[in-house]
């Protein structure tokens, strides 16, 4: 069927077959189990420099012929645009795969255990447990024909106790590595219900937990896409080779991380994924590229296609020198365990604010004095990254509603973060 595409000067065809299951619970009971089965063929077709993208569900020969006919019709109205399809077959496939992520009984059992752990110290819990298996095939006009399979599972659980709450996640490519005890950790954290007080607006040293820090890093990853830089969605324009973070910060993108839940054998062009340094000791080293943006910038692709916009796979924040306890023990300021609703006033300057969610603390010499309510960080992302002075050795893979691309993330201490209140 794919040979129908030979009439185009360039083409990429990706067939994605995905099965997903979700266990969803709230008020301590599992309420719904969901299942999705989807098969889609995504085409990028180019003739005389004119490019059209078409997505067909459950493709067959008839549907493909109709799509080609439509593409021909549409192309006569288009102007040529650049489309490069790279070739790099140095595929590194060390990632794990686990078909058990779709096992109903095992998923139910994991979710029930997480709920029980949460209720050891917590009063109410809610969350989701996902299992996803994906098969991808790719063909392109450069002669590439490859296939890949991926699995991922993640547990996201929030625990409430009186006016307090805490959130934890566990992510892996293997179901057995999902740690149901994160329910207990969240319960213990929510149970630290020292009286929540307001604090004055001002600058504070702040410890960000991996859950909180990963939220900011996931935005940073999207800003490192060459498309975001071109379009005005990034503060990293004209910053190549310049300092964008403190020297203790190194950030990489990896499509080959063994347990990275977004690891892929190849990108959307069929180019081998790899590990790419974005920031090395505080200096911006690379944007994320597909072959088209790479040509524009005069560099090689980083294996991060997205056909239009390069995308990050798994973001790795390199661990620091401190134990988690040491990062917290030093703090004279705030400990923030989660963030949400991060919004930018200006993508190109990096000015933003984000709301502290779940339990947060005010601490002096590492001793927690009281819980804190009603705070947000209202600052600039580049400034925050430049003011990070310590990272923990402990790194956790985070992916959930507010961290839309997985981040392997340590605890971070930020000096003089601007805190505002209502």
């Amino acid at each position, binding site marked *: 069927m794919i040979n129908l595409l030979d009439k185009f000067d360039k083409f990429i065809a990706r067939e994605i077959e995905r099965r997903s299951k979700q266990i969803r619970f709230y008020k301590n009971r599992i309420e*719904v189990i969901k299942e999705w089965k989807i098969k889609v063929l995504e085409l990028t077709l180019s003739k005389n420099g004119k490019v059209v993208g078409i997505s067909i569900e459950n493709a067959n020969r008839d549907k493909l012929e109709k799509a080609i006919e439509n593409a021909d019709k549409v192309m006569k109205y288009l102007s040529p645009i650049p489309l490069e399809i790279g070739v790099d077959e140095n595929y590194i496939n060390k990632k794990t795969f686990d078909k058990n992520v779709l096992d109903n009984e095992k998923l139910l059992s994991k979710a029930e255990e997480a709920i029980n752990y949460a209720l050891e110290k917590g009063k109410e819990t809610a969350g989701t447990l996902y299992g996803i298996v994906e098969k991808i095939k790719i063909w392109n006009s450069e002669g590439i024909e490859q296939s890949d399979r991926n699995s991922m599972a993640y547990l996201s659980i929030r625990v409430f106790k009186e006016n307090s709450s805490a959130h934890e996640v566990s992510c892996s490519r293997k179901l057995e590595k999902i740690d149901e005890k994160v329910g207990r950790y969240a319960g213990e954290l929510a149970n630290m219900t020292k009286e929540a007080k307001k604090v004055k607006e001002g600058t504070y040293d702040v410890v960000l937990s991996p859950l909180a820090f990963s939220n900011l890093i996931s935005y940073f990853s999207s800003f490192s896409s060459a498309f975001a830089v071109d379009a005005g969605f990034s503060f990293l324009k004209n910053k190549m080779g310049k300092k964008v973070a403190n020297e203790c910060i190194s950030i990489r993108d990896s499509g080959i991380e063994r347990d990275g839940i977004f690891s892929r054998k190849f990108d959307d062009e069929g180019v081998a994924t790899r590990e790419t340094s974005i920031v090395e000791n505080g200096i911006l080293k690379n944007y994320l590229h597909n072959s088209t943006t790479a040509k524009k910038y005069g560099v090689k692709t980083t294996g991060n296609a997205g056909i239009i916009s390069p995308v990050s796979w798994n973001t790795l924040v390199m661990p620091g020198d401190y134990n988690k306890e040491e990062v917290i023990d030093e703090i004279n300021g705030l400990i923030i365990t989660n963030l949400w609703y991060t919004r930018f006033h200006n993508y190109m300057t990096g000015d933003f604010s984000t709301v502290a969610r779940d339990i947060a603390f005010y601490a002096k010499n590492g001793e927690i004095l009281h819980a804190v309510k009603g705070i947000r960080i209202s600052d600039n992302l580049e400034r925050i990254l430049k003011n990070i002075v310590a990272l923990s050795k402990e790194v956790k893979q985070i992916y959930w509603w507010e961290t839309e691309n997985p981040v392997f993330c340590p605890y971070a201490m930020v000096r003089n973060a601007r805190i505002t209140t209502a």
Partner: protein
Amino acid sequence: MAEYALNIARAKYVEIRIERREGNEILYVNGEIKSVDFQENYGMTIRVIDNGVGFCFSNVVSKREIKKCVERAEKMAKLQKKVRLSDEKAHEDKWYLKGDFPVVDEKIDFIKSLDEMLKEHQRVFSYNDEIVEKLYMNSDGSKIYSKIPRIYLYYLLTIHNGKVEQMHREFGNAGGWELIRKWRVDKNILHDLSFLSDLIKKGEKAPSKGDVILGPYITGLIAHESCGHPFEADRILGRESAQAGKSYATEKLLGKKFANECISIADNPTLPNSYGYYKYDDEGIKARERILIKEGVVNEFLHNRQTAYEMNCKSNASARATYGKEPIVRMANTYFMPGDYSLEEIIEDIKEGVYMVTYMEWNIDDVRINQKYVGEEAYIIRNGEIDGIAYHPSIEISTFEFYKKADAAGEKLQFYPATCGKGDPMQGIEVSTGGVDIRIRDVRIK
């Protein structure tokens, strides 16, 4: 085929939604077409309620697949949690909204004409249209067919002139291509270019305290964020607590005074051509206007059949689902109902303050109390008159303080399209936010 699902199901309740979406997206960046994409989705969702809920989606629509999906959903629904639905009238109906789209060249020419207005600046235009066709049936006897077109345009404009300033705007309706000229996108672009240039040259710090007028673009968002979301009954009952959060509202708030008398807020899916338009929701309930706050008093929450059962009332047709997802409680078009004041009357007795017209940055906590809005287009008010441009003034205010201090509502209502995010997996759904000028007295301005 949909009837087949109902015939073979053994569970107490089953529903099927067969849905086809045909869409076109065009992305234009800095004078260059980046992509022209076409999508076609065709799939079915089956939801079964036994004790719990079993939900199955497949994009293979065949009798064989329906049988598999029903069986799997029935098996999955045997859970501890007891889910029940409110008793509702079943409907059989067909509804359509007119609207077509031209071939792609006309769309590209239109975007190109806008792009050329900005050729000296960094800019992004993102256009999409779609036609959504649905057949919904449930075991209570509802059978509803619908077809609705939608059209949407977004732009982000960046200007560099010593400082860097950005402005984005969205335009959208339910309906076809004929609506695009009514948006006057060109007029908005000219206005934004001129304003951002003035902001860089003349923007000054706003006073640190005073009266604030929030324009319709911002108050529409406030209605959505601090009234619409917290009045979603599933959130009040804790079903969204792990992701979208909880609510300051409880059932005890019904009938209680919550805001100044000048405040009334409604949510209405039936507004013709509105971006959040629908005639029946995704549980087959006939849509109607919902008055959330009436002259300051909490009047009703947004319900689907599950939350209506739990709160012992009827659904008000707030169940909505995106392609392949479960129906959950959603807003449609949420808005402040107009008051009596002209803008001139609202401004005239302000000694010192700001008038915030547009925002770029906003956020609110997950119980919907602590909210922040940062003005992009904003003006300083002195002695009852606009007297200069305010540089990025912001307010951080609790929901309770906002509704208590709001003492005047403007007469001119304006709607803006938005994509509202909620659910797990995330469902971005078409809504609009409607606002009037609202004055709040004596607030901290940053």
